[in-house]
């Protein structure tokens, strides 16, 4: 005959299983998982726009012309650079962004060592920003004399590396 002795246990089992499933469902629904990948997304976006802005500034607008970036660097025109770079970096199709940056120049000095000198900073860094670094090689002509800004500067045709740290303030 049918043995109905453990019916209460069975029902209890169902109830327990249901409660566990329901709890798991609720918890997982309210929980948002911050994967390591998420933090890289903002980095990726900053790096992309930074590289793009440098590339745009380093492309001559007419054939055989000199790029904006070469102009700012060889004249050490930090104000002009700041105005243009900030404008391009924060330009949006609607509204403005709030990106800050810190630009420096690396170059090979006459003692054959690579040196780095600050160029322009739009905000003093606290070193706690989550910043990304983008770079661009720039060829500056022989007529340029930047020895007052770059120690041990060798006056010749040369390639310098413009490095920019970008962060969101």
């Amino acid at each position, binding site marked *: *005959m*049918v*043995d109905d002795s453990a019916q209460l246990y*069975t029902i209890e089992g*169902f109830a327990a*299983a249901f409660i566990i*499933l329901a709890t*798991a*469902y609720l918890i*997982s*629904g309210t*929980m*948002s*998982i*911050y*994967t390591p*990948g*998420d933090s890289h*997304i903002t980095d*990726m*976006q900053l790096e*992309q*726009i930074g590289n*793009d*802005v440098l*590339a*745009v500034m380093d*492309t001559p*607008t*007419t*054939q055989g012309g000199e790029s904006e970036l070469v102009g700012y660097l060889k004249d050490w025109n930090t104000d002009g650079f700041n105005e243009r770079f900030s*404008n*391009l970096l924060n*330009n*949006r*199709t*609607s509204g403005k*962004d709030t990106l800050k940056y810190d630009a420096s120049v690396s170059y090979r000095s006459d003692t054959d060592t690579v040196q780095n000198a600050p160029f322009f900073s739009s905000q003093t860094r606290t070193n706690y920003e989550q910043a990304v670094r983008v770079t661009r090689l720039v060829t500056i002509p022989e007529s340029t004399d930047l020895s007052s800004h770059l120690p041990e500067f060798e006056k010749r045709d040369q390639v310098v590396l413009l490095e920019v740290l970008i962060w969101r303030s």
Partner: protein
Amino acid sequence: MSLRDDDSALLSIDFLAGFTVFLLAFIIAASMVPGMLASLQSSTVDHDAVAYRTGVILAEDPGWWFDEVTMTGHTHWEGERTALDSIKRMGLAISKDTPGILSMGKVERFFNKIEYNANPKFYSSRLFFSDYPYTFNISLKEVGSDTPLSIGSPVPKDTTDYGSIRRMVMVKEVGPAIKDSSSFHSSDNTIGAKTFAIRLNFSEILSKPLAYRVDPYEDRIEVRLENLNHYNDNANVILEDLSLFRGPSKIPTNRLKDTRYSILKVGDETKNPEDQPSIADNITLILKPGFFTYEIVKPSETVDIKFTFNKTEPTTDWTYLNDTYDYASTPSPLTPAVLEVAIW
């Protein structure tokens, strides 16, 4: 002990009932699993990745046009007006070797709200290459301008609801070549038709660096002839014919008479060349991007766009424009622009 009472070898009813309940519960639990995962998936990861990919296609890829019948393909997809299926990919760059430099012809074709509204699904399939129905908003604004171009749905208010990427690009645009007619040769005082030709030497035009040349396959070609009234005999002049020639032979195409491909303006009014319009002080001919295809002109050839002028009563001697203008224009300086892609 009767036979009926012995249930030792039967499949127990208990087991049947129990197993049914188990199966039901299992099915319900299994069907709950995808729902649980939906709230778990970190959707911004996917949307940001798709936005990045779409941004790369738009900014760094020239797109792709391919005809399955003739098995030919090229990157000048923006000229296709009828067989939209031939457009495989809608990239805006002028070429693969110049990432970040966009062609104004492609930009205008892409940010065409009428074309987009007519077929939004087509845009999705040529941008995302995915069965998932992404909603998107793509906008482009030249730096310094206040009027962004945009297509797609309005962007959600909450920035965590969508994936996005912002790109800085440069746009190449070709302005009109404006010519004063007095700078050209005139015919001697004779009876009959006078011709003026705009000559496009493709190999010469295409020999410049990619970013700084007018690409007749891809850019708008606009020639404006001004000051035609400086001729004493400017009354009763009509445009008898407007045709495309390769050397002495006429190229059979009706694109010069089709406003989808070209526009003729006389005195700033749009005219149909077939109506033989009478000529005012100026004429403008606009060949829209994609007017020329490889079937019409090969990159090594030279073509003439011939204007034939005549008097309404061709009986008297008259002097008029009678020359060949070697089209040589350079694009306007590249202008920086910001391109934003939002996907959700």
